[in-house]
């Protein structure tokens, strides 16, 4: 038994708390995609042949290029956090700009890829699509849904990183206070993490 003062407050800065919150949010995101992965898993085995046939249309080169882009961007984010810890603000900002550029490259790549599919009528509503086997349509739909949702995360991640850049430049993020930078980085790695699974599931397994 004893008397003591009110310790920490919900309104104080608590970096460890923010990081915990970020991780918990990442778990939510993982399970959000998890639902889609479950659907994919079930239909992959139910429509093994159809999935194989339609996956032929996927461009491995583009997929691999995007994989390399995302892994590189993960690296640049990780490096920029290392730079921040070493108090090298300018390098950190530069590396974040590179990351955003890579994100942009990813989206452009994706745009061309989708454009190509749409051109071939491999999209909901087009005649070619309507004449596909059920399993094939399912594959394409999951492809659009999962990579689309992933693309949305790329965009959100890039926006977060842009905010981080602004705050570094304004001096709001510093060597001793870079929790937002770190959490933005965590989010970005999640985007990479999900792609690590999407790549083999949609491009490689045909």
């Amino acid at each position, binding site marked *: *038994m004893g008397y*003591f003062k009110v310790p920490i407050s919900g309104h104080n800065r608590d970096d460890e708390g923010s990081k915990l919150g970020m991780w918990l949010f990442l778990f939510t*995101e993982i399970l959000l995609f998890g639902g889609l992965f*479950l659907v994919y898993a079930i239909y992959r085995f139910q429509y093994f042949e159809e999935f194989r046939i339609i996956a032929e249309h996927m461009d491995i080169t583009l997929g691999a290029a995007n994989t390399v882009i995302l892994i590189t961007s993960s690296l640049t984010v990780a490096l920029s956090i290392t730079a921040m810890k070493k108090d090298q603000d300018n390098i950190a900002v530069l590396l974040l700009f590179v990351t955003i550029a890579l994100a942009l490259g990813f989206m452009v790549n994706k745009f061309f890829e989708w454009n190509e599919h749409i051109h071939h009528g491999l999209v909901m509503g087009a005649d070619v699509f309507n004449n596909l086997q059920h399993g094939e349509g399912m594959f394409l739909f999951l492809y659009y849904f999962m990579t689309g949702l992933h693309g949305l995360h790329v965009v959100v991640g890039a926006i977060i990183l842009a905010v981080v850049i602004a705050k570094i430049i304004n001096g709001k993020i510093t060597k001793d206070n870079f929790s937002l930078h770190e959490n933005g980085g965590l989010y970005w790695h999640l985007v990479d993490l999900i792609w690590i699974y999407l790549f083999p599931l949609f491009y490689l397994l045909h």
Partner: protein
Amino acid sequence: MDNHAIDSHLNFYETKRGLFSWIFTLDHKRIALLYLYSISLFFLVGVALGFLMRLELFSPGGQVMDPRTYNQVFTFHGVIMIFLVIIPSIPAVFGNFFLPIMIGTDDVALPRLNLFSWWLYIFGALMALGTLMFGNGPADTGWTFYAPYSVTSDTNVSMLLLAAFILGFSSILTGLNFIVTIHRLRAPQMPWFRMPLFAWGLYATAWIQLLATPIVGITLLMVVMERTFGIGLFDPSLGGDPILYQHLFWIYSHPVVYVMILPAMGIVSEVIPTSAQRTIFGYKAIALSSMAIAFLGYFVWGHHMFTSGMSDQARVVFSFITFLVAIPTAIKVFNWIATLYKGSIYITPNLLWSTAFIFNFLIGGLTGLINGALAADVHVHDTTYIVAHFHYTMFGGTIFVFLGALHYWFPKIWGRMYNQKLAYWALGLTFVGFNILYGAMLTVGVKGMPRRYYDYLPQFEFLNKVATVGSWILIIGILLMIYNLIRSARKGEIAPRNPWNGVTLEWQVPSPPPLHNFDRPFILSEKGPYDFSLLEKINEVEQKPLDH
């Protein structure tokens, strides 16, 4: 403390005034009240719909509406009650208000996120209500949204699904906030096993909210996409598998029943020691059984699908795990009752709501065992027996505790006492009406009346009439209670700090609490949160107020 001392003679209502000071507040207590008022509003809508359904079922044949309307009514009733009322109810109201106080801090860990989840809640709620105005009428699919009916129905299902998706995220963020709060902001002298049991209940709940909700979120989104793009993810005419939808839906929706009940069990574990003036029996068993329920609850979802055409082996596995969940629940019940043993019991409406809960929940839980048994569930599945089972657990369980908690913490929240005599009457009527209503539905279900029936066979008429009459008694009880509480909040006697002689931290702060909760150092015991030998010391402080 020191920096807060300045305004701590004002309570949290008085620090700021005006609408904006409420809807943009970061104070966990105000956010809790925002939730309370909005939830009560939707709750009244849900109740009215329930009342209408009972009127319709008073006699066979159409009474007050046509079949389509009836289907929309039970869907809306279910969606409101589940997503707008019961899931947020205890965590968002009492969790928000009392968790920070009970673990000795001044707010939740992420106050902004807290406000944001309330706004998400309101946005989702407005969207759900919007289905009344936009599109081809509100959804008529049942709250379970089973494919392929939900894919082909021409009502405004998509908007309701999106609303549920948004409400899901509100719930996730509340859970996330609580986990961080409990990990980071516990008072230094409060290790895990000295936390109040309500905090344990919320902690277990929060993990379910966090890890189960996203799955249903994405599933509902898939149905929306399916409706928009005409893709056969779950529609068999396009190659989909409707049973897969059921799996994904129940992966969330079974665990979510523990989101509803675990915080309620936490509150009961607070009320009983306070009323018995002794420590809780088996603290660790109760705390850990919450975690066990939360964990096991993830693996039983298939018991909603025993007749769906799932593989026979899966049915057996799910039935088996279902029975395992009952064990930690049983442990809790036994410990509560043992806590009354050799206590020095003060009978209050608080305690009676809790014991009424135990009685109702026993019926709800024990009927759940029949559902879990394969052979018996084949008969009662999708009958009003199931409807009675879940009203016994959700209404007789969670909502009863919610109402009990309103009474228990009433003095703390509003700083006034309620009229005890009226409270007994209201409780009595509610309890009797409730058991007539759902007791009758339980029986008529065993006789074979399916649920979601607009019309029924003549042999079911008598029991349905009984049920409807029960609903009238019930509603009188509830109205009486609402009247009593509203009147007392304005005109009741001024409440002291510690009207029920509790020892957890919320009884060591003024009623209502100041903005930063504490106006003086609080007392914690090494013997756990329910050490009533401290009572004198705690109440002594009240007599001689500290000087600021």
